[in-house]
């Protein structure tokens, strides 16, 4: 057994999840593949969205995968960092917007 929770080499084994549940695994990978095809959004745009989300959900495998994917697509480091900031802004905004709830509760409880 690995002595840490994350091993970069495990990313290569992602496909193995179908071994324990073939139907659901295959459905997931079909869906996943379809999502990232060229569509109303380009594959390049979707790669940047995936990179931003990877950071927000703090998935090390996804960060490795979509940094590499971005390089392969010729996406620049400036574009990648802006995407990460877009994710970070939404994440911090999501925290801060709860400040309104805090303010509401504070006001309600205060004389």
């Amino acid at each position: 057994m690995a002595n840490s929770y994350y091993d970069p080499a495990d990313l290569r084994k992602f496909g193995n999840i179908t071994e324990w549940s073939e139907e659901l695994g295959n459905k997931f990978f079909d869906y996943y593949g379809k999502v990232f095809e060229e569509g109303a959004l380009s594959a390049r745009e979707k790669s940047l969205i995936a990179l931003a989300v990877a950071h927000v959900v703090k998935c090390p495998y996804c960060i490795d995968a979509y940094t590499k994917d971005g390089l392969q697509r010729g996406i620049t480091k400036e574009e990648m960092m802006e995407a990460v900031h877009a994710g970070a802004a939404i994440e911090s905004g999501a925290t801060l917007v709860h400040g309104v709830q805090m303010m509401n509760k504070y006001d309600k409880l205060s004389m």
Partner: protein
Amino acid sequence: MAQSILTDIKKAAKKSLKAREDELADTQKQLEILSGDLFAGGDLPFFKDKISESGQFPLKPKKLEVLQINVGYMCNQVCAHCHVDAGPDRQEIMTRETMEQCLEVIRTTGAHTLDLTGGAPEMNPDFRWFVEEASKAGIQDFIVRSNLTIILANKKYHDLPEFFKKHNVHVVSSMPHYTRGKTDKQRGDGVFDKSIKALQMLNKVGYGMPNSDLRLDLVYNPSGAFLPTDQSAMERDFKKALKEDFDIDFHNLFAITNLPISRFLDYLIASDNYEDYMYSLVEAYNPAAVENVMCTNTISVSWDGWLYDCDFNQMLDLKVASKVKHIKDYNDDVLNNRDIIISQHCYGCTAGAGSSCQGTVA
């Protein structure tokens, strides 16, 4: 840590592996690595076993279409990814005598494409004579692979765009990215600005312009341990950026995968990317790309006249497995009966949409 290794590589990369007397300058050493534990230990399949699965072993040549001639390893640049290990310190240059032998073949071959490469082919002192003679043979597509910066390297090269035009040469040039940073990291400081200037000079005489017969294509190699992706999407991005930023036109973009040999292999090992890169190549294996892999329609000739299945095998010193091994004894029929020599570097040409000197193949 990784950054300091990369700085070391960059410093070292001002000289060829050969001049540095690096152990990877020995092609046997490279071949040992390519057949090392990763494959021998069973983690990844040997290329031979992989193509056997689809009944494609042994790999056999089809009709000869491309004659690729390497006129010397001397170059004004020392690119970090160079599979030729080219540079200013390389002295291997094709002589006029060998060029004469090549011309005999060029005049009689059925190949539709003649492809001159190097090094910087223009640095061969007999380059212009050779182009003039070869262009008389009436080959349909006559390519010179120019690194662009050579045009600006010395006054004597400034007229190359006119020279190429006069002989209706098809110019194919390397351009790793449309941004300065990525280009200079791979090819050296200042290369991007010089390349842009050279492209503008080529445009000025008519190269690469829409509807122009003067063909100007660019070659994209990834600047790091990753594979190229969708060639047409990259071409769109390159066209848009080069037009908007520098008013440059070109025809097609060829996306070429870096093969794990020579200086790129050195980089992969030193940056601890070798294993991951080989996994990426094997995972992206595409049997359809094997069908059209360039060694099936190409013969590669070295500066000293030896024959190889491709430019990569030339750099690994894997001469053709045929009774005919030298341009002076060239014989289509005998060569067509050979088996193509393969090793694990061949995964580089069969990954994804495939890779060849003309870009994707599948």
